């Protein structure tokens, strides 16, 4: 009995020591996850999620403080990518697969106040004071900040017009479960 007691105690002590050492040797510094999450997010730092910029949102996501559906400009695709990265089973059906949007200036209403121009996080609005502004399509992330500040409602988010170049086939709908009775 004494043998059992001593041998098991010593074994426990040695294993404990090994684990303690291992914990020090293999300590993970920082959080690689946050960096990967930042890569997934749009990076326009628009702040619509309520966190300070995309890095703040990534931090919150990594700590589980925010749902993967937090990014409105990212839409469904980003939500799915985040869920996959975090390994969570998110219900993304609530996130409407937003038609890609873009800001457009209605020239007859624009007074050239430059407010939209100042808040745009990606410098996608061109123009100067007292001149009608216009949107540089390639740079607009449809974050909607310009829409918020525009005093005359001349800036509005509109669906991106489909072009021959961007058009592609819809997903076929004739499916197995299509036979579901109404």
């Amino acid at each position, binding site marked *: 009995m004494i043998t059992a007691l001593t041998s098991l105690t010593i074994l426990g002590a040695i294993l404990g020591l090994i684990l303690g050492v291992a914990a020090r040797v293999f300590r993970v510094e920082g959080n690689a996850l946050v960096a990967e999450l930042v890569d997934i997010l*749009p*990076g*326009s*730092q628009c702040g619509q999620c309520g966190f300070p910029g995309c890095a703040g949102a990534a931090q919150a996501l990594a700590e589980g403080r925010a749902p993967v559906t937090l990014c409105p400009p990212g839409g469904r*695709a980003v939500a799915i990518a985040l869920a996959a990265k975090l390994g969570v089973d998110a219900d993304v059906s609530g996130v409407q697969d937003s038609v*890609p949007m873009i800001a457009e200036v209605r020239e007859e209403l624009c007074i050239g106040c430059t407010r939209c121009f100042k808040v*745009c*996080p*990606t*410098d*996608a609005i061109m123009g100067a004071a007292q001149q009608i502004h216009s949107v540089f399509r*390639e*740079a*607009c*992330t449809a974050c909607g900040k310009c829409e918020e500040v525009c005093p005359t409602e001349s800036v509005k988010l509109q669906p991106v017009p*489909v*072009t*021959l170049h*961007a*058009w*592609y*086939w*819809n*997903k*076929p709908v*004739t*499916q*197995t479960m*299509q036979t579901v009775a109404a």
Partner: protein
Amino acid sequence: MKLFKLRGGVHPEGWKGLAAERAIRVLPLPERLFVPLQQHVGAPAQPLIKVGEHVLKGQIIGASQGFISAPVHASTSGRIVAIGDYTAAHPSGLAAPTVTIESDGEDRWLETDSPSDPFSLLPEEIAAAVGAAGIVGLGGATFPSAVKLNLSRKNNVRTLIINGGECEPYITCDDRLMRERASDIIEGVRLIRYAVGAVDVMVGIEENKPAALASMRAAAAGTEVQVIAVPAMYPMGWDKQMIRALTGREVPADGRSADIGVLVHNVATAYAVRDAVRFGRPLVSRLVTVSGGAVAEPGNLEVPIGTLVETLFQYCGGFSEKPARMVLGGPMMGIELFTAAVPVVKGTSGVLALTAREIGSTQASPCIRCSSCVRACPVGLLPLEMAAHIRAGDSNAAVSRGLKDCIACGCCSFVCPSHIPLVHYFNFAKGELMEQERGKLKQEATRKLADERIARTQRIERERQEAAEKRKAAREAREFAAKQAALQTTTEVA
């Protein structure tokens, strides 16, 4: 000549009899022609004319833009009445930039000087002439031919293959062309051979076209051109399939046929090359098969580019019954037209009006994993698995199973007993992936812009602060000096 083993492929009902025995007829000149500015793979052409201007047949109206592009020419003489969007021959039904020409009825060619002997030209000059004539791959790929010629010459292409494989059901325009204008084609072939410096020339024609084979063999007699019968199957007209049948080699997935020393051109392209080099005539018309169970008198027509499809149907006696579907191109890869008011373009080989019986059932049922599609796929893909992944929303998994190698030939959908629209899935996924790719590029670009903006605002803020500090220091210095001065004054006063 030994032929090499092929795999996959299907044998759809040919329906060639509808039009194969009808000799080529020239379509009477239509009143208006709608010539799209992009009829080829690559960048669209830039319009060179203004509304109201008068043009001659063969006059350039759109200039090629960039390396991979082709010019567009007026298909007849007349007046430009519009330059703007017109419904394109595209499944989306969207409009594309199009030049509308009102014919003056004279059909007068632009005067050009042509060489007495085309073989006296330098190879580069032939390629240039082909490029200037706006010739693109007429088998349907519409890749600018001059680009291929130049690339092949640089790659020391040894073998020239002329693709006489017309495997799409109904379509007989190449068949007729080979039967009726074989010696012109052979001359075109020899010009291409000369232009790229190829050694061997093979013309592959499916064995179910004995008349075309005979006439081409007769025309090729005594030249270095070999005419070879290949098995009749679909997709024999796929250039890589033709290469495999004739040479036994495969084009690397990441490469081009020039990488293995082979250049493939369609017979109709060879015919157009001959016209362009010998007579300086650009590509302004082509042969189009009008066929299908609903067409009263199917036939093969020589049609100016830009003619509306409805004109073709009208000329062929209209419809004998209401067509269930109008198709531009062949039934395997063609696109459905929801209106016949779209123009014929350089890549249009046929227009079909099909009855419901010819189309067959399209009601989809669950996949039973019968793997008919696997056996039918000429590329060696697993269509059923790819479609299952795409259906589940995982297009990337489909890519890892070869989605990007898919040529959308339609063999899998054709044989599927469950009538699953497999190719539709693949094209959806390809489009989706392309959109993702574009989105990613845009995201990177906007991120850079946002970072720049943040850096700039920080810099401005910093500069403003520095300036403020400077001002403050200056003010303090001034005040100090003033004080000192005041002090001094007081002292002086005192």
